Each structure stands twice: as C-alpha cells, then as structure tokens.
C-alpha cells in the first residue's frame, strides 16, 4: 500500500478541479434559479411556461447528456472551442439551475399565503413583502435542501471527466493505468470524496437541528 508522494499530490491537485467547478457553478446556478423560481410562480404565462418547460426538460435528462450537448454544440454555436473545463462548468450551471429552482420555489410557497396578504394590507409594497417578510423566512427553511443539493452538485462534478476534464476521477484512472493498482487509487479517491462530503453534510445536520 505504498503511495508515491507525487501520486497523492496529483490526486489532490485534480480534486481542486472538482472544488473549483462547484465553487464557480453553485453561486451562478442559485442566483439564476432564484429568478426562475419567480418565473415558475409568475402569472405572466410566457414566463411561466418557459421556466416550467426548462425545469421539466432539464430534470428529465442525465447530466452526462447535458455535458455532451455543451461539449459539441458550443463550438458550432460560438464558432470556437471553449474547452472541456468551460463546457463542464456551463453544463453544470444549466443542469443545477433546474434543481435549485424547484427548491427555492418550494421554500417560498411553504410560507402561508396569509402572511403575504397581511403584509400587503399593512401598506407594504410587493417588493418589500418579498424581501422583508417572505424571503427571510423562506431562505431559512430552504437552507438544508439548498446545502444538500449543493453537495450533490459537488459530487456531480466528477462527471466532467467524461468530456475530458482532468478531475479526481480522471486522475485515479491515469494513475491506475500507469501503476496498475486499482484497489489503491479508486479506494483513495472514494475516501477523499467521502471525507469532504461527510464534513459538508455536517452543515446540513446543524441546519436541520437549528429552530427555524
């Protein structure tokens, strides 16, 4: 079970790619999803239909397919290569928007509608109702689900290796083909991922215990 220090360094460096993908994709995806969530509740039919169609189509597709779509459509549409990393990043954002939209929508709709009417009748403007009454409560309620979905998205970043991004799963494959010790490398990357995600899911456990 001896490991060369440079093998471990190589694995950790590649793991940074997974972390980077998640760190870049998640804030964008959540921000856009917040807009889409309002789209899903909009009374303006075109907006409602667009957001609903988007969410339903993307949630029916495997992430690998979205990655492939981006990987070969982007050069055709943009007229130049965007690279594997950027394709994976954009695919991840496009894919996770659909899931975050539903979480945010459910969070907003979990606040009793009476609160909205009460706030409106007290003379608040609609945007004040949203930012001062509904959202502060809704965000607290949706935090556990948002964090859980973020951890899932972080796990999903390993699929970027399918379109050629050198992430932790690709690193394990490279090291294995060089040294031929699958039991060591594939177990090691699984343990690294487990330790990270388990620590992150500690945040979820803490959020769930906290009174809302």
């Amino acid at each position, binding site marked *: 079970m001896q490991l060369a220090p440079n093998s471990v360094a190589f694995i950790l460096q590649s793991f940074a790619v997974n972390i980077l993908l998640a760190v870049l994709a998640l804030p964008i995806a959540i921000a856009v999803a917040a807009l889409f969530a309002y789209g899903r509740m909009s009374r303006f039919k075109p907006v409602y239909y667009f957001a609903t169609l988007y969410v339903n189509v993307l949630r029916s597709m495997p992430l690998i397919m979205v990655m*492939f779509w981006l990987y070969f459509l982007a050069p055709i549409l943009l007229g130049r290569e965007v690279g594997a990393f950027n394709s994976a990043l954009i695919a991840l954002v496009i894919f996770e928007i659909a899931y975050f939209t539903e979480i945010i929508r459910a969070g907003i709709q979990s606040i009793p509608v009476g609160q909205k009417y009460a706030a409106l009748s007290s003379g608040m403007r609609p945007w004040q109702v949203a930012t001062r009454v509904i959202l502060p409560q809704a965000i607290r309620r949706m935090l556990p689900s948002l964090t859980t979905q973020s951890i899932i998205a972080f796990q999903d970043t390993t699929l970027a290796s399918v379109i050629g991004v050198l992430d932790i799963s690709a690193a394990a494959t490279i090291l294995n083909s060089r040294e031929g010790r699958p039991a060591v490398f*594939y177990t090691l990357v699984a343990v690294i991922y*487990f330790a990270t995600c*388990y620590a992150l899911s500690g945040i979820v456990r803490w959020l769930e215990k906290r009174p809302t």
Partner: protein
Amino acid sequence: MHYAFDWSVLWREPYGSLIVDGFKMTLYLSLTGWVGALVFGTLVGFGRTVRSLPIRALCTAYVEVLRNVPLLLQLFFWYFAFPVMLPRDIRVHLYSFGWEVSSAIVALALYTSSRVAEHIRSGIRSVEGGIRLAALSTGLTRFQTNRQVLAPLVFRLITPSLTSEFLTIFKSSSVAMTIGVAETTFVSQLIGNATFRFIEASTEATVIYLAIAWFVATLAGLFELKLRVPGFIQREAN
C-alpha cells in the same frame, strides 16, 4: 450556423438496432438496480430504527458512506477495484460473466438504496410514536409492528419520494457508459463518433430520456393518487 441534418443515422443499420439495444440496456440496468435498491433500502431504513445499537450504527454508516461518495467513483470502485481484492478464481468467474453490466447494477442499486433508506427512515419518523406504541400494546412483537403496521403505511406515505427516486435511477444509469456498457448515452456517442452526427444522435438519446421521464411521471401520478393516505399531508399537486 450551417448544418445539414441527416436523421437517417437513427434508423440506418447497424445504428437502428444499436439504439434499440441501448434502450433495452437502460431499462435493464435501471429496473434491476431499482429492485436491489428497494430491498436494501427497506432493510437499512428499518434497520436504523431498531433498538440494537450495533445494527443502527451499521445501517447509519452504510447510508453515510453511500450518500457521500459520487456514483461515478462508486462505479469505478466496483468495476476496477473490487475484483482485484477477491481471490483469483472468483475474479476470473466475475469477468467471464460480463462484470461491466453487473458492476453497474451493483453500483446503481447500492447508491439508490442509501437514498431509499433515508426516505423510509423519514417516513417512519413521521408516523412513529402513537402508532408504534398502539401496535405494541395490542401484543404485536416489534417485528410484527414494523412489518404489518408501519411498513404498509410508510410505503404509502413515501410513494411520491420513491417515484422520484425511480425517475432518477434511469438518469443515473447513464454513468454506466464510462465503463463501456452500451446503454442509451453510450450508443448515442458511439453513433456520433462513427458518423459525426452528434446532434442527431444526442437528440435521439435526449428524446428517449424525456420519454421515459414523461411515461414514469404519468404512471406515478396515477399511482400516488391511488395510494394516498387520507389525513396525511402529501406532496402538493403540481
């Protein structure tokens, strides 16, 4: 954008029959994996509510490990790492049976079972208390209480969560392409590589996944209506 479509790659031989076989493989992986996930998920989900601390700890560890490692890495573990940990004879036997497909099913079943177990556990938590005590006080044993009182109720309560896991397993089965299992996604990229018709081939795979999702969602809607437990709050209808 100048692109001349050629949809004939979707039915021209040998691609037409490859697509059909890929679709069958997606169904086979998902349905077999689902059976395993339900069996293990139910056992582990109920295992987390028993009194024995070792069993509870074991079931908790099972769920945490399988939930916190990406499916792709789990698949790589079962496909590449697991066989070399076994004695040579067994390994040869595994490979002669086509370990690609079997390891994909094992990975899918175990990964999904950890999620099923979580749904079962939260289902039990939502009805527990009065019902369990009432059943025990009528003289039923703990096992009978679980089997005859809690299980039927819990399964009906968590039907919406289970159907959405069922939908997910079809999408998850696409990771099997990474170890060379010729399921829908694999076949679409194979055709793309062979003909350079990536858009047509990926459209085909996408349409298959959308059709599966639509079909399962429609069935699930009927199912959920039938299994609804009156008096309990269910997932709101969309």
